[in-house]
């Protein structure tokens, strides 16, 4: 038999869009997981901002499962949403549904992580590679060149793990002495155990780079319990980490501006429907947060 493939090569970006006001928009949001406070916060920011402007919002949670996320997005397309804001579990695996959205002429905005292919209106994310580099440079500055440090990695294979690792190692491999790299899956309990063991094997480490703040908080507990003096830097700027910085349990974190990331991703949708030109790549700057500027960051990002 002769088959039709339906593999048209995505012609998503139509130059002429039918203009729509925010209150006429139904926005589908697919979040990679809601078991991470960073994303819960992101979801809330998106939700509040969009609802505040009168849009309808439908949210789904992929539970960190790439194929569930594809199903979720398909189901959002079925519901004829006007736009999709996707926080991909994985940049490569999301591409096929992005293409599907393209076929259905639904504009897509990626948030926090990008899509490898398919047409997206915009990608709003922190620059993870830059953040990784920033963390390494900061450690070099604080602890001096060749300081012994350990790297606690995120979920193996996750784009955040790869990118942060890549950025960090690009500097760290040369200027630091990375004695241990262990995965703790972005998980606090896992990071606690892993850190306990790292401290055992390398009792003389001076610093730890944790690829997210959950891990940083877990690592800090291990360090405190072992009564060691280790400089910890996390990644996220999550509330728990900010509190820990205030208390001096964590030295620093690479702060992502979640409020900006969330709001801008929604704004991209609005701008698109106003016929405005939107930047393909919206790199929201990350900044290093230490005791010195934690209050300011907290105010800025969480309004607290």
């Amino acid at each position, binding site marked *: *038999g002769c*088959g*039709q*493939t*339906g*593999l048209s090569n995505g012609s998503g970006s139509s130059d002429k869009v039918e203009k729509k006001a925010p209150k006429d928009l139904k926005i589908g949001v697919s979040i990679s997981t*809601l078991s991470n406070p960073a994303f819960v916060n992101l979801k809330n920011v998106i939700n509040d901002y969009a609802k505040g402007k009168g849009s309808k919002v*439908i*949210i*789904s*949670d992929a*539970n*960190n*499962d*790439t*194929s*569930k996320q*594809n*199903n*979720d997005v*398909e*189901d*959002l397309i*079925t*519901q004829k949403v006007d736009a999709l804001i996707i926080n991909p579990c*994985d*940049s*490569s*695996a999301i*591409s*096929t549904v992005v293409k599907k959205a393209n076929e259905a002429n639904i504009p897509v905005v990626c948030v926090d992580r990008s899509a*490898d*292919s398919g047409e997206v209106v915009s990608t709003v994310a922190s620059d993870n590679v830059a953040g990784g580099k920033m963390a390494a440079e900061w450690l070099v500055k604080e602890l001096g060149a060749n300081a012994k440090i350990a790297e606690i990695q995120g*979920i*193996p*294979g996750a784009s955040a*793990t*790869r990118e942060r690792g890549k950025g960090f190692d690009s500097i760290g491999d040369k200027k630091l002495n990375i004695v241990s790299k262990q*995965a703790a899956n972005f998980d606090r309990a896992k990071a606690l155990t892993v850190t306990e063991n790292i401290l055992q094997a390398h009792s003389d480490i001076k610093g730890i780079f944790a690829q997210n703040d959950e891990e940083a908080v877990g690592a800090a507990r291990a360090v405190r319990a072992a009564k060691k003096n280790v400089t910890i830097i996390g990644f996220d700027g999550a509330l728990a980490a900010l509190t820990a910085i205030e208390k001096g349990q964590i030295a620093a974190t690479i702060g992502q501006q979640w409020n900006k990331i969330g709001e801008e991703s929604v704004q991209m949708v609005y701008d698109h429907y106003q016929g405005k030109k939107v930047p393909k790549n919206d790199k929201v700057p990350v900044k290093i947060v230490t005791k010195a500027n934690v209050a300011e960051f907290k105010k800025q990002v969480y309004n607290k």
Partner: protein
Amino acid sequence: MMDKPKAKFDVTKYMALIALIILAIVITALNPQFIAPNNLMNLFRQTSVNALIAFGMTFVILTSGIDLSVGSILALTGAITASMILGGMPAWLAGLIGIALGAVLGAINGLFITWGKVTPFIATLATMTIWRGATYVFTGGNPITGGKMNTSFFFQFIGQGYLFGIPFPIIITLIAFAICYVLLHKTAFGRKTFALGGNEKAAFVAGVKTKKVLITIYTISGLLAALAGFILTSRLGSAQPDAGTSYEMDAIASTVIGGASLMGGKGRMSGTLVGALLIASLSNGMNLLGVNSFYQQIVKGVVILIAVMIDSQTQKNRD
């Protein structure tokens, strides 16, 4: 004296189907989108990966076994297939090799269980961990994607193509269903599977080569998991190192909702298909209704429980 009336219509056999129909009606009433042809196609496509795994799981569960390693087999074979395609091998060949590898991994489970005398739960728990680790080692933790995977028509067709307007994964699933159905219900092998599950000792004494049958069954399970992995890789355009995590639970749930008993000896392929559809409809439907994902889990658990309780309550001859 033998020409007594045929066994009468047994409603308990159709509990899962009735539940599925009721569910479909309820969801449709709340959101008619549900039965839009487009959504049905989505739904069936969303069912396919789990259904394929569940078909294999049905054989396994019929023998009172369990296969926890399916998700890891899916991931490992998917990754290897993807890397072979990237390396330039024709996609059909890479797919075949991946599926054959799945069969081998399944057979290894069977060997541990029969010759190694390890209970299925532990044997497949161990291989689940091992193959997952192997997948991470093989991929270095990175998804495998790009290159020829984006250009091979065959590869893309498997997960994303249409034939006569029907998504190709659905067609593969239906073919697999037909084969499994015949295998289980119409062949000597299927009979032996049932006999073994009903009473392994009696089956052995009656000449069933129980080890051979068991190894074959775990081989089928591995093969189908790899086939599911091929489809998934094609759907996602990428092989994820953590693909298939906890898929075994959905497959087991589908099988059990479809009327199979974890004690073995009881189950039907059509029941499993219905069970898989029910689970997929639940997610799809709740997504359409905009049910909060947290509540989705609760609802799913409750539905499994109710389905199984109705089933066990309507069985008279339990224990």
